[in-house]
């Protein structure tokens, strides 16, 4: 990448045409306007934005491009919305290899194509060497809520069941495997995935989902603490029921990490009334992205909004908010 690629001139137009528009091609983007114009079906509009700064850019199971598309699609999906369109903004550092950019763009095109959600508008900027860590990507997504759902983090109620769509910690461990100074062999790949298909299957089973969120940075523990606090309730988890891959558990034990706090990129937590739980679980289990789904706990009354967990042996522990970054054990 050179600064001239971001200057607004011929070089930039060529880059956009030759790389972005070619890869993402769709009727809106092909028009090469500064905006995309579209109608939306009837319903409530949902909009979300996220920026992606993961390091390293490429890791087992995916890259920053996959996260940039799937992450934003998921934030739309967990509102109970059908994603419609995406935007993508790039901040590139001077000197960033074009072949890496191409690889990332191709990942995004594939993720967008698989999801059936086009990237209809975008932006490119280039900053001087040293002023950006390779590439930062921002994506914004819009979606439409057609069903009669009311999903919000403040709607969890005592007695509700808590469902998790699959194993925790895959993404965080996969990323750690690629970082400097922390090299080890592992068969774990990032679980990055677009969840709107799973959500659609869930909504066919019941529209009475109270709260739903995809646990990313900070892991399952952070998401549950957020919901507990916003809803003014407590949560009681069953450690035995939380799905986790043996390899992820082993790596976490080795490094002194608690898998509850390790990042995910293709999982969701759903909270619904107790009577709807079995039906919801059945619908999730039938979908490829929900085959390891489980009911992992319940919502309880608690003015302190604690998240507690019954450990495998029947003892109890609290699941605190994450403090800082997870640090490894010393000996």
């Amino acid at each position, binding site marked *: 990448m050179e600064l001239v690629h971001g200057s607004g001139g011929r070089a930039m137009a060529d880059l956009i045409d030759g790389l972005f528009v070619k890869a993402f091609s769709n009727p809106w983007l092909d028009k090469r306007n500064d905006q995309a114009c579209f109608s939306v079906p009837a319903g409530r509009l949902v909009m979300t934005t996220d920026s992606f700064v993961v390091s390293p850019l490429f890791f087992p199971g995916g890259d920053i491009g996959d996260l940039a598309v799937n992450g934003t699609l998921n934030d739309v999906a967990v509102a109970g919305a059908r994603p419609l369109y995406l935007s993508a903004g790039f901040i590139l550092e001077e000197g960033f290899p074009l072949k890496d950019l191409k690889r990332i763009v191709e990942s995004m095109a594939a993720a967008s194509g698989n999801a059936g959600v086009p990237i209809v508008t975008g932006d490119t900027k280039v900053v001087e060497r040293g002023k950006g860590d390779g590439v930062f990507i921002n994506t914004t997504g819009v979606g439409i809520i057609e069903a009669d759902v009311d999903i919000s983090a403040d709607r969890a109620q005592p007695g509700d069941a808590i469902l998790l769509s699959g194993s925790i910690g895959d993404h965080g461990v996969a990323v750690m495997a690629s970082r400097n100074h922390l090299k080890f062999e592992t068969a774990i790949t990032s679980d990055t995935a677009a969840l709107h298909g799973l959500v659609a299957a869930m909504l066919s089973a019941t529209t009475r989902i109270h709260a739903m969120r995809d646990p990313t940075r900070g892991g399952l523990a952070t998401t549950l603490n957020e919901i507990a606090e916003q809803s003014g309730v407590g949560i009681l988890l069953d450690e035995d029921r939380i799905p986790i891959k043996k390899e992820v558990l082993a790596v976490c034990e*080795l490094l002194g990490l608690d898998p509850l706090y390790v990042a995910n990129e293709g999982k969701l937590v759903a909270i619904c009334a107790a009577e709807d739980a079995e039906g919801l679980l059945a619908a999730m289990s039938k979908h490829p992205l929900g085959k390891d789904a489980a009911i992992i706990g319940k919502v309880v009354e608690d003015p*302190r909004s604690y998240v507690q967990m019954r450990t495998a042996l*029947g*003892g*109890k*522990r609290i699941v605190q908010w994450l403090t*800082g970054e997870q*640090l*490894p*054990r010393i000996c």
Partner: protein
Amino acid sequence: MKYIEEFRRNDAGKAILKNLAAETDPGRTYRFMEFCGGHTHAIYRYGLLDLLPGNIEMVHGPGCPVCVLPKSRLDAAIFLAKEPGVILCTYGDMIRVPATSRDTLYKAKAAGADVAMVYSALDSLAVARENPDRTVVFFAVGFETTTPPTASVIRRARDEGLRNFLVFSNHVLTTPALKIILDTGPSVALNGFIGPGHVSTVIGSDAYLPVVKEYRRPLVIAGFEPLDILQAVLMLVRQVNGNRFDVENEYTRSATREGNVKARALMDEVLEMRDTFGWRGLGLIPRSALKIRPTYAAFDAEARWDLAVFDHRECEDDEKGCACGEILQGRKKPKDCPLFARVCTPENPVGACMVSSEGACAAYYLYGYGVGRK
């Protein structure tokens, strides 16, 4: 990786608990100290306190090398990190521990010092090889578990002829600390110890025989899975009931009677005993810590820099109200500290016990606070 699921099995755990319930004498209290911070964490993380009979009390010990490091030594490390050309390699735990005036390696890093987090001593050696024009200093902390790796990398550095690698040794020893606890420790008598698992892998279970014989208290070495700890508690209860005081080993899959002879030989080749060393909370303990031998002075940060100004003089160097020292001695519990969770939290730690992943306060805050019995 084996040994995780097997040692968390519900049915086996219930069986041990059943035995405990049957064999604890309802007419007495059992007070056991888990020496190692790793055990404190495991106890809270698996919610074991709820499961133990009500007349068994677990007392937290000083086996957290980050916690017992006096602020003055951390001040020295921060000084080294700020020296021109230095890359200070450190275990992750040390990065947020507050030194004097609440300075931390983290703050030094944010202000431009080159502080690199490493998982092992070997990583720091790699940093030295990859950065021949920089001076790499490894901030070595730990009981006997991490000491052999430190000795190993110093010897490797010598064998490879590295000229830019130094170690700042803060390694401490387990049995002197055990003795101090028994001499001056909790005002309420301890009935026995859960011995540190990984330390014992290095020093061997026989290393505890003198202390156990002299002070007539049983010690059972335990692993770190919930079944390990429960089984060790049961073994302690049985000894106490039988008026025995022996060294027993629950962690047989890792620790033996003689320990790792090769590792100890390596330690002995590279390191030697300090006359005295200051421990946070326990005070000055003679012959309780290790420094680098003169033959390896080329790799000794204390030979390259004059760090005497950081010499530990005062033991009472903790902030007002901070009960770290007393918690390390087993005299107080985290919830007895007036600062706990009010002023002192993991985000804003006052003492090392709240930062270290083996600190009692961190363990209680992360896993035990507000739930269960303690």
